[in-house]
């Protein structure tokens, strides 16, 4: 359902993605792990063209694009097939909670107000934010904002939901609320790409884990394969460092 071939991207002289191939099936939950600055977020942003890849091909549902020849119409339709949840939530400040969830349905997908409202309330219920429907984002905690932004992403019926470090900007005590919402979303069968530093969570919800370093996919496989039986030195090193840090901070 999503396929990348030879995806390359650089910002100025800095090569960020150096030829990435990737295959995602419908309903997959794919988690990207790896050191900071290795292009995990950038891959997600290639899917909806928030960054501009220099070359490579992508298949998404019924579309195929060659990034060298992509046009404005392709970009819009890529974006209308996907939705993104951002590290910094990025809710629209001038809109209430329910308006945030409704707006794209009305503006982009031409739904009627009542239809959009009904769907929005249903989704807000799912993320546990029904009672805040008329609040403005500035009155909400980070965790609440992120739950609303998940509802906003689901409201447009995306083929794929892209989660870009959805819990990295949250206070530790709010992380679990958001993770449990993401887990619920994963169980609905929607295809998910997720960048996260929450290793235990990645292990729990993904059916595929991609370890990236330096603009390359170093290893990919099932969570068991990556977390328990990795044959790759770099993967093992990264994970052992990570778990060492955890152990130290637990003490």
């Amino acid at each position: 359902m999503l396929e990348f071939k030879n995806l390359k991207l650089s910002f100025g002289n800095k090569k960020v993605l150096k030829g990435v191939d990737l295959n995602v099936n419908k309903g997959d939950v794919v988690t990207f792990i790896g050191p900071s600055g290795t292009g995990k977020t950038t891959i997600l942003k290639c899917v909806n063209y928030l960054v501009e890849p220099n070359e490579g091909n992508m298949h998404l549902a019924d579309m195929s694009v060659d990034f060298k020849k992509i046009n404005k119409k392709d970009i819009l339709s890529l974006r209308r097939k996907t939705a993104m949840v951002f590290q910094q939530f990025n809710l629209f400040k001038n809109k209430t909670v329910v308006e945030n969830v409704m707006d794209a349905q009305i503006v982009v997908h031409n739904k009627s107000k009542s239809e959009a409202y009904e769907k929005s309330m249903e989704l807000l219920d799912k993320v546990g934010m029904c009672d805040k429907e008329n609040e403005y984002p500035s009155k909400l905690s980070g965790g609440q904002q992120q739950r609303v932004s998940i509802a906003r992403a689901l409201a447009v019926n995306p083929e794929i939901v892209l989660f870009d470090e959805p819990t990295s900007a949250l206070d530790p005590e709010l992380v679990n609320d958001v993770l449990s919402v993401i887990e619920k979303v994963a169980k609905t069968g929607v295809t998910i790409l997720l960048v996260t530093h929450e290793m235990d969570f990645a292990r729990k919800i993904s059916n595929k884990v991609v370890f990236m370093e330096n603009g390359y996919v170093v290893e990919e496989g099932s969570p068991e394969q990556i977390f328990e039986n990795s044959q790759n030195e770099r993967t093992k090193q990264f994970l052992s460092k990570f778990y060492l840090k955890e152990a130290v901070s637990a003490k």
Partner: protein
Amino acid sequence: MNFLILFEDFVQLLAVVPQTLLLAITIFILSILIGTVMALIQEYNVPVLKLIVVIVKLLLRGTPLIVLIFLMYYSLPDTVTFLSGLVGLDYNGTNIPPAIILIVAVSFTVASFQAETIRGSFLSINKGQIEAAQSLGYTPYQMFKKIIAPQALVEAIPEFSSSFLIVMKAISLGFMITVVDIFAEARLIATDNSYYVEAFFAAALMYWAISAITVTLSSKYEEYLHSRM
């Protein structure tokens, strides 16, 4: 100071307040529209037009308004006659009312300042919200209308309110090309009855009243918009 004359003058000035406000509001709205177009051209890096905007802004901001008004007063009629001739119309540019010349001159001058305010207010909107709108498939126009403009307006209101006052005061230069506003009317009254201090004090009072009302209304509106964010 003769208070009776002052009172009479004040009442007489009230008669020109509507037309002064109408001029000011027209110029104010035009300056925002032109300023927005200038800001958008600069923000979206439109080739050629961007260069023109930069040069025009530089010229307008460096020219004393009175110089621009006279320049237009003496050159615009011929220019319009010439241009309308080019497109095959037979329009005599000397028929242009001086008020129109004043509107054009002040609108463009204020717009060149307004453009900076507007650009600043666009830039104040964080990139994250723009990415979010893009990721949901908004077109640039939808994004501008639903997300950027409403938030930019809140940022710009204090500046807009002071630019309205600048426009109010700039219009008094219209006297030089026979446009009658509060100041011009005060001058006419004074020449008529020779009570100069009273006439100009009445004019000053009128300007103060209008600014007080403008500032109050704009801060109320700003407060209202802030409560909805």
